């Protein structure tokens, strides 16, 4: 299976060879890339069930596969050996979990330089992400993808809520709705985020988020925090319509427009003469 994928991949990064004859259609390279990626994605989608079993072993083939994907998609910024360039940091020691978070949430490959890498549709299949993660993890030891019991979300929601209020809520909002930071950066909302990505963000500290290593918040603590976030999403606000849980901004806007608007309407009705 992996051999078949390699053939597609080796086709993709060969734009120079298409110029040779000079009479191909200008979109030939793009078309070739699209065909190659679609075929790769399709093949992986078919193979996912068997591929996940193989990734745990982090076999040499998988690492090799990840290296090729890295060279084709990441190396222009992070360097051929992930040593880092002016455009991107080194990934030596970043670990599999950082790759899983950054690529798995669609932040990498980065759409454009800016204050913050924006979320966009995920560009790779999970099997491809796992391959790249295995390659980065092979460079130097780093945080690994946690076992399922730490991202199950079956912990103590009350303890998780306390930890969240102390460590996370100042940026991410007490209900995980997100909030603004300095100079155009922001803390994203946490609704609908995969637990493994919440865990990954805490451990690796992506972009401007501080690191909350296992020595600060234990894996059990992290599971409690995930439990709390899932609880908040699954249970509607006790106080009724939460207006995005944004606090005084949305609530103030609502009451100024609709509350005062209703009062103005009632005042006009009170003083108007009946028909």
């Amino acid at each position, binding site marked *: 299976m992996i051999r078949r994928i390699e053939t597609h991949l080796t086709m993709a990064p060969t734009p120079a060879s298409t110029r040779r004859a000079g009479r191909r259609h200008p979109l030939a390279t793009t078309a070739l890339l699209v065909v190659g990626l679609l075929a790769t994605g399709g093949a992986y989608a078919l193979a996912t069930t068997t591929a996940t079993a193989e990734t745990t072993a982090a076999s040499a083939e998988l690492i090799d596969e990840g290296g090729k994907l890295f060279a084709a998609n990441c190396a222009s910024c992070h360097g051929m050996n992930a040593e880092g360039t002016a455009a991107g940091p080194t990934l030596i020691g970043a670990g599999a979990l950082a790759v899983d978070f950054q690529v798995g949430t669609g932040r990498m490959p980065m759409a454009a330089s800016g204050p913050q890498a924006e979320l966009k549709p995920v560009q790779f299949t999970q099997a491809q992400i796992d391959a790249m993660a295995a390659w980065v993890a092979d460079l130097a030891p780093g945080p690994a993808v946690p076992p399922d019991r730490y991202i199950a979300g079956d912990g103590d929601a009350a303890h998780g809520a*306390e*930890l969240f209020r*102390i*460590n996370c809520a*100042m*940026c991410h909002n007490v209900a995980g709705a997100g*909030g603004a*930071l*300095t*100079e155009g*950066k922001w*803390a994203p909302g946490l609704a609908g985020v995969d637990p493994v990505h919440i865990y990954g963000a805490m451990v690796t*500290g992506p*972009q*401007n*988020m*501080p*690191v*909350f*290593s296992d*020595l*600060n918040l234990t894996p059990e603590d992290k599971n409690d925090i995930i439990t709390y976030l899932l609880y908040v999403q699954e*249970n*509607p*606000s*006790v*106080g*009724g319509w939460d207006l995005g849980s944004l606090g005084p901004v949305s609530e103030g806007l609502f009451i100024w427009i609709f509350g005062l608007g209703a009062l103005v309407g009632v005042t006009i*009705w*009170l003083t108007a*003469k*009946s*028909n």
Partner: protein
Amino acid sequence: MAEAHDSAHGGETPGTAVAQQQDHSAPAPAVAVVRSDRFPNPGFPPERLRVTDLDPKKEKQAERTISALFFLSIIGSVFAVAAYILFPIDNLDPSTIRLNNMFLGIGITLGLLGVGIGAVHWSKALMHGHELVEERHPTRGSDESRERAVEIFREANAESGFTRRSLVRNTLIGAVIATPIPAIALFRDLAPAKDPVALLKHTMWDTGVRLARDPSGTPIKASEVTIGSAFHVIPEGLAELEYHRLEEKAKAAVLLMRLPVDELNEDPAKADWSYDGIVAYSKICTHVGCPVALYEQQTHHLLCPCHQSQFDVADHCKVIFGPAARPLPQLPITVDDEGYLVAQSDFTEPVGPSFWERAL
């Protein structure tokens, strides 16, 4: 209403001023029409009768609407009681509060709005609707009633002997003045027993006090603070305090961060206040005391969420934006024999916002 019309003709309004001035001079020879200096009082516009005055069918309809509103109010009030019983709050399931509050609120809203809207509609549509003018009465009382009032005071003085029995009068005045004194003494005791200035100048931090995690209170080893980390810190022992725990936490809360050593630009005088890139700063904003904890690990900016003050952790937390007047106070730290982070001393300046006695 009539007075308002009169004052409008008194010459104050801009439109009438020109006409008045012309009238003071001799009439222009070519103008044959004699002009009045006043607009005639237009009086009231003809009274427009309401549909309920003209059409008995509409009147009947309004009556039904009003009674329907009052009936809706009754239903709402009864519904509120029924909802309170049918949707009880289960202490173990907070989501039950939602239904309970919603239906109770709908019921009470119908109960109150039904009465209010019905009453207003009644007065507007059915009650006697003729326009009338009520002249304003003078505020001053009649001479007769004023004289009578003075007379009553005189009689009361003569009968009670208020001016004659001066001992009684003076002791009464003294007694009335004395009654609020116990309240002053009681309310004075609400102030801090100790000197508040001294309380503001010192926190729980002291030489050798370990830095501990909030909220568990477990001490932190320097080796546990990886680069890019942010720890929310309380002094060891705070979690076990029996009294004034929140007051102490409000002063002693600290944010512990580790930066790459080469990115840390330290004041030479405070160079030994950090440990291998680990720095500890007060979490209490120097503007008005909000907790400053929005730490960006790449830019090393700390943002206060209340008024957007920004501090640069790499540059001894100097203010780079916003209303804060001073850098966040730094807690001098080091490690003890067992590798735990400890404070070298208390903060060397008062934490938090300015206060009157604070030396700047």
